[in-house]
């Protein structure tokens, strides 16, 4: 399952990754904090939308991600 950056507001087009709570290969439970994101206005914790094993991280810490883009994959 792809974990995508959800909409954060009309004028917010992207967020930057502050840090990942999980490493590739680790398991994560549904609803567990997966990644912290930061925008100009606020910081967010994104919970895992499903449980499983984190297989891919598409954006490393400090990288920017567009709204709707894939952040990670959970299997």
């Amino acid at each position: 399952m792809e974990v995508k950056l959800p909409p954060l507001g009309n004028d917010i087009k992207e967020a930057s990754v502050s840090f990942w709570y999980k490493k590739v290969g680790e398991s994560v439970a549904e609803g567990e904090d997966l990644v912290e994101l930061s925008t100009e206005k606020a910081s967010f914790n994104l919970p895992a939308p499903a449980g499983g094993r984190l297989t891919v991280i598409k954006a490393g810490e400090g990288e920017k991600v567009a709204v709707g883009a894939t952040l990670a994959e959970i299997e």
Partner: protein
Amino acid sequence: MPLSGRRFQPKMEKRPAWLTKRLVFDPAVQETEAVVARHRLHTVCAAAGCPNRSECFARRVATFMILGDVCTRGCAFCGVRRGRPEPPAADEPDRVAAAAAALGLEYVVVTSVTRDDLPDGGAGLFARTVTAIRAARPPVRVEVLTPDFQGDRAALETVLSAGPAVFNHNLETVARLYPRVRPQAGYRRSLEVLRRARRFGSGLVKSGLMLGLGETDAEVESALADLREAGVEIVTLGQYLRPNPGCLPVTRHPRPEEFDAWAETAKRLGFRAAAAGPFVRSSYYAAEVFRSTGT
């Protein structure tokens, strides 16, 4: 460290851990977004990039923003676009009422951009929106969060005559910071709007302040006392968050305990309800705050 060659800027504090908001993944978030889009409406939640948006949308709660999404003012704290707005849409009140019904809201908060370009400041459309929502069965309560209508008494009374359960107008900040934060508004004028609303006697009167714009504690206490003196019964205090780099910097991040202490202070000053916290916004859990007054 030498400061030479650098323009003085108020210090921007790093965001502390308690200001990390948990996003909510829930199908209801998309359902709420779809209801808003289907009725061609705006929410201040999305327009202002509110960090609470997913939490509230998951509860099928949204704050409607009428009269367009372009504001005629340029307040230095606000993320809503400034420019020349479109003419008001005559069917917007019915669309808001329909969307509120689709969401199953029993308590609806309606706000707007500031429309200094309209002769009545948009008061007529505000009133019709309140009336349209209140026509629902079973009855629905409405909270309005209005601009100052440039102090126009008739415009204010037009809105109040429609019978909102709560009239809200945010003071936003302390008197000293008005020229910087709300250059086209006035501290005394906003207090007068609130005082007149209270005297009109329709529903409860509510207001709110942001912290983190450079105010001192003494100034906050003084603003709270002014609000009480004007007859305000419900108050909100929240953290100012800069929506974009063009807005004023955040000067401080009071700890959650400090917000708790402000709620206590507000109660001591005689407010019937006080909501204070880093993520408290004017309309955050507005229905619950209203009910806590026991009205």
